[in-house]
């Protein structure tokens, strides 16, 4: 009998551990001045240093250190007064020096935490994820396998190496083991990675694109019978390339391990690979023996010893924690969860906040960005923020609030601005978009409408108020939509003795 996820977690307690690798978005690489552009043509962003040519020496990118300290601070870590790089020695063709310049027993940030909130059966619950360390290292090159089963004709199987990625700064964020998540382990993992991603984005230190590999997650999990107080053997799942996959991979892995244990089999400590299509994991190549990385302090680099002043300067630069900020804004704007999530998903929180800061009323700011502007952006397949400035949006909203523009007119103004016709003022001027509020001008149109539809007018006089719609429509049409419909209605009903 196989256990499903529910049964598995009723019997076994999972213990999590997460390692996240983040590529920093510095202009140049970690130890050399080569560009870090994604997608450049092969081996055009390499130099003696990142190709590991004989004689080349590394020099640390100061910006990468700053970014790492910022990450550490945002994750509530202590910043080590003394940290060093070390060499991690192992052979791999995509690693030009056959050692990775990394940090070992002296990482730059230690002992942090991140609180993540998830929805449980009993409502929202906060889990504290302890962070063991945040350290710096460098990325490897990329290899491409040619030949194989389809290319057997010539018997040629070989690999091609591109070192453009080699030496791009990587930050590794390692949690301590996360106990006590129970059946929520996959959700906690997902929430952690999500929140980490948001923090990294708010810090501006990484592109955090999981699909491009600038954010990668390795998920460890082990199972032990509930209440046993034991710690099981863990597996490490790599190749988890989306937030959803983090959750799926762990769910699958917990199920797999539980069923192995049920069958009386042992869990092997190994690296497994996540298969996006099936949601399952498969074993990686098992190592004959544990690697011996022969770490030692990198003699080509000197220690990093940030002083308190530098750390405090960086701390002062820290943006508000994205989760806190979101809660604050939601409260201030008085928005329901669903709509807040729409804003977050559309990455419009920042612009709405800015528009509100410029004086716009929160509900209108939200509606315009999420509605009309997003619709136009969708049509043009660009980001909403690239279409129109927050200042113009705030200006338009102010005109609506003052009654100078109707929603309908405002849409035309937005369209004009987006089409490059100038500022809202200029568009209003050029297109002649002004609310007609002059009573006498409206009265002329109202009388004309009554004359054209005497029967309808008679019905209204007789008390059939809804019939007025047709007359109002006619007036609006006659004024090119520039009249305020409520004003027209008021004047019309009064004129027909119903006001």
């Amino acid at each position, binding site marked *: 009998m196989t256990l499903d996820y529910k049964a598995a977690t009723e019997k076994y307690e999972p213990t999590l551990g997460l390692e996240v690798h983040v590529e920093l978005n510095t*202009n140049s690489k970690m130890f050399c001045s080569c*560009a870090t552009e994604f997608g450049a043509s092969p*081996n*055009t962003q390499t130099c*003696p240093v990142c190709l590991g040519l004989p004689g080349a020496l590394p*020099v640390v990118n100061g910006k990468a250190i700053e970014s790492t300290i910022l990450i550490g601070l945002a994750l509530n870590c202590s910043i080590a007064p003394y940290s060093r790089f070390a060499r991690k020695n192992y052979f791999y063709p995509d690693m030009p020096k056959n050692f990775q310049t990394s940090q070992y027993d002296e990482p730059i940030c230690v002992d942090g935490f991140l609180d993540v909130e998830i929805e449980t059966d009993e409502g929202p619950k906060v889990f504290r994820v302890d962070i063991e360390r945040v350290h710096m290292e460098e990325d490897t090159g990329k290899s491409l396998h040619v030949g194989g089963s389809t290319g057997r004709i010539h018997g040629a199987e*070989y690999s*091609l190496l591109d070192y453009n990625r080699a030496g791009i700064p990587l930050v590794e964020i390692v949690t301590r083991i996360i106990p006590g998540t129970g059946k929520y382990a996959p959700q906690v993992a997902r929430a952690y990675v999500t929140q980490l991603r948001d923090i990294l984005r708010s810090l501006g230190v990484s592109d955090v694109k999981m699909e491009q590999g600038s954010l990668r997650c390795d998920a460890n999990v082990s199972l032990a019978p509930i209440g046993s107080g034991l710690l099981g053997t863990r597996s490490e799942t790599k190749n988890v390339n989306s937030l959803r996959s983090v959750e799926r991979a762990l769910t699958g892995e917990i199920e797999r391990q539980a069923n192995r244990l049920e069958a009386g089999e042992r869990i092997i400590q190994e690296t497994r690979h996540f298969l996006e299509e099936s949601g399952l994991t498969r074993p990686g190549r098992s190592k004959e023996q544990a690697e011996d990385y022969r770490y030692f*302090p990198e003699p080509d680099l*000197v220690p990093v010893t940030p002083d308190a002043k530098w750390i405090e300067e960086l701390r002062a630069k820290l943006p508000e924690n994205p989760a806190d900020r979101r809660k604050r804004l939601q409260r201030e704007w008085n928005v329901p969860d669903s709509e807040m999530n729409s804003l977050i998903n559309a990455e419009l929180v920042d612009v709405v906040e800015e528009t509100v800061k410029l004086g716009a009323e929160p509900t209108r700011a939200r509606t315009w960005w999420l509605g009309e502007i997003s619709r136009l952006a969708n049509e043009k397949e660009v980001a909403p923020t690239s279409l129109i400035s927050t200042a113009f949006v705030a200006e338009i909203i102010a005109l609506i609030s003052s009654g100078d523009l109707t929603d309908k007119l405002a849409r035309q103004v937005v369209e004009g601005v987006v089409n490059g016709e100038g500022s809202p003022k200029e568009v209003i001027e050029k297109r002649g978009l002004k609310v007609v509020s002059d009573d006498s001008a409206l009265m002329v149109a109202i009388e004309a409408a009554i004359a054209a539809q005497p029967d309808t007018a008679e019905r209204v006089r007789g008390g059939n108020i809804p019939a007025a719609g047709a007359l109002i429509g006619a007036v609006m049409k006659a004024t090119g939509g520039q009249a305020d419909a409520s004003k027209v209605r008021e004047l019309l009903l009064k004129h027909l003795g119903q006001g």
Partner: protein
Amino acid sequence: MAAISRDDVAHLAKLARIEMTPAELDHMASELEQILGAVKRVQEVATSDIAPTSHPLSMSNVFRDDVVKPSLTNEEALSGAPAKADERFKVPQILGEE
């Protein structure tokens, strides 16, 4: 100190990616044992109260500005390659690739 066996050297040679013949392994084992016999003297004075020195200079915080400088051209980068194809280094099949 335990004697250095051929298996020990074979393990080290594997870590160091050097394909040694059995005769070479035997020879290296005896040489390594001889050398270790001489160098283990360091343990006589290396007491726990002494801080290790990994670098002759006490420098710290040597950083570079985050400024891009020209890389090698693709031709220069590949100029020493034993084999190349498609603007890349061509190497024997990498086992264990995913």
